[in-house]
């Protein structure tokens, strides 16, 4: 059993002279909800892109789901799920077709796809809308569906890149309940967010500033260390 879902040591990404991610080192434990915070342009997206194999690191080492990022990136792809900040299901296809498609992409058997589809529809209470186009759903539903689809192949690690942009607090709460449910089943969640109240929901968080990890710990620890009342204050102190 691997205890660390993600390990990164001195992971670096350079674009020419500009260092977007500068020697970051951290571990994410299995089953953990890990918040990955930072101001815009701090290097969050670049870091996540390296971990999911969309971008090649310029230096350093990393493992994802116990596999080496440099040498086993194709294997890693089978073990991770990803939800991007753009809503990325096919709006002109039905809910069922979207689930079928991503199930098929990850090589699930037809029978498994059928049970998965039923599970997802039941969990989201969308049974009666299964054959409606995704484009007609409210944003909150779309995002929850996106999350379910990112989990369709039971990945070890799910990467969420600002999953809750633009929705109201009540819907965000529902979304986080899904995250907790997945994490309690042993799945690791790696999530970036702008919302500091969401940061409080994470088991541990790291805050990136100018390509480096400026702080890392549980929300409680960080608030103590910076003598802050809320994560908001912690964040502002670091970023300023």
């Amino acid at each position, binding site marked *: 059993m691997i205890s660390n879902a993600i390990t990164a040591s001195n992971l670096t990404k350079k674009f020419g002279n500009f260092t977007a991610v500068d020697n970051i080192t951290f571990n994410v434990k299995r089953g953990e909800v890990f918040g990955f915070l930072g101001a815009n342009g701090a290097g969050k997206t670049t870091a996540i892109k390296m971990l*999911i*194999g*969309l*971008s*090649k690191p310029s230096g350093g080492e990393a493992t994802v789901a116990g596999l080496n990022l440099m040498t086993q990136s*194709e294997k890693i*792809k*089978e073990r*991770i799920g*990803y939800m*991007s*900040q*753009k*809503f*990325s*299901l*096919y*709006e*002109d*296809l039905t809910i069922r*077709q979207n689930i*079928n*498609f*991503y*199930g*098929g*992409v*990850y*090589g699930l*058997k037809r029978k498994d796809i059928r049970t998965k589809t039923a599970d997802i529809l039941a969990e989201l209470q969308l049974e009666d809308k299964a054959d409606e186009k995704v484009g007609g759903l409210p944003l909150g539903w779309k995002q929850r569906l996106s999350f379910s689809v990112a989990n369709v192949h039971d990945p070890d690690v799910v990467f969420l890149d600002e999953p809750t942009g633009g929705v109201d607090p009540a819907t965000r709460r529902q979304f986080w309940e899904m995250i907790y449910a997945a994490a309690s089943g042993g799945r690791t969640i790696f999530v970036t967010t702008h919302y500091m109240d969401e940061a409080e929901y994470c088991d541990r968080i790291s805050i990136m500033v100018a390509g480096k990890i400026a702080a890392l710990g549980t929300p409680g620890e960080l608030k103590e260390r910076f003598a802050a009342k809320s994560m908001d204050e912690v964040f502002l102190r670091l970023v300023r």
Partner: protein
Amino acid sequence: MRSFLAFVRKEFYHILRDTRTLLIILGMPIAQVLIFGYAVTNEFRNAPIAVIDQSHDELSRELINEITATGYFNLIEQPPTTDQLDALFRSGDVKLGIIIPPNFEEDFFRQKLTSLQLVADGSDPNYATTLINYSTQIIGSFQQRYAGGPARYQIGVETQLVYNPLLINAYNFIPGVVAIILLLISAMMTSLTIAKEKEMGTMDLLLVSPLSPVTIILGKVTPYVFLAMINAIIILVMGYFIFEVPVVGSLVLLFAFCLLYVLTALSLGIFISTKAASQQAAMMGSLFTLLMPSMLLSGFIFPIDSMPWPLQQISKIIPATYFIELLKGVMLKGLGREFLWQPAVVLAGMTIVLLLLSWVNFKVRTK
């Protein structure tokens, strides 16, 4: 394999879901064939003409009858003077004037020499040339019949147009339309759909999935290969049944060449999509760099031989040029592989180069 099939199924859903686009894709070839077949044509019937008959004898009347009986010309008026003929030209009511001199019959039989004047409206040069050619031919055969065989000391010219003896326009436009439609569907539609995935952000999801980039591209283009081939069949069948364009050569070879050209066009589409970030950019890119040159410089509308040198060079890098050559070779001339391997190799080479360029582009982007 399973994931590839899932991908192709998804692409078909996209296409079938969007009925409007589907209608355009399947309706476009039909519309184009009909437009080129009936509206854009050098062939003519009932061209309006006027005759000034200054002779009014038996022979002149015979000649006028002969000309109008062909069905190509419609005698609008017989104005008495050239001034009135001028007026008819100015108003555009008449495209060709024939002036028969006085004593036409007498001169013809006694002096063995007479002359006619043909006046055509040169503001539409192609049309004017065609009218002059047709009428000259009719007058020529008329003269031979009455003079009893070709006159002595005359060079009898007998022309023969091989491969298209009746100069049927459809023999040219059916291959042309196939080339344009296949390009449109293969290059433009694929570049659009790949650009769409990028724009919507779904491309990132696909790249994060275990699908290899090659599978993604193959899955994207497979449905369009089908659509393109269906369209090729529609156009060829319409050409055969409506415009009687034959396929003299091998059908198998014909479809093999269609497939080759579709592959070339697809790799062009893929190449454009590696460059274009949005659907709009892909659209503009394919319209201006593909469609326009392919219409104008491939020999479809204007003959390549009469183009100035620089344009001839451009026509050499246009896939449609080679494809039209192949199509005409198989359909009209009945040529086999031994005569057509050269353009086929050029198309295959273009495909490989384009795929390599796309691959390099793709690599650069993911770095």
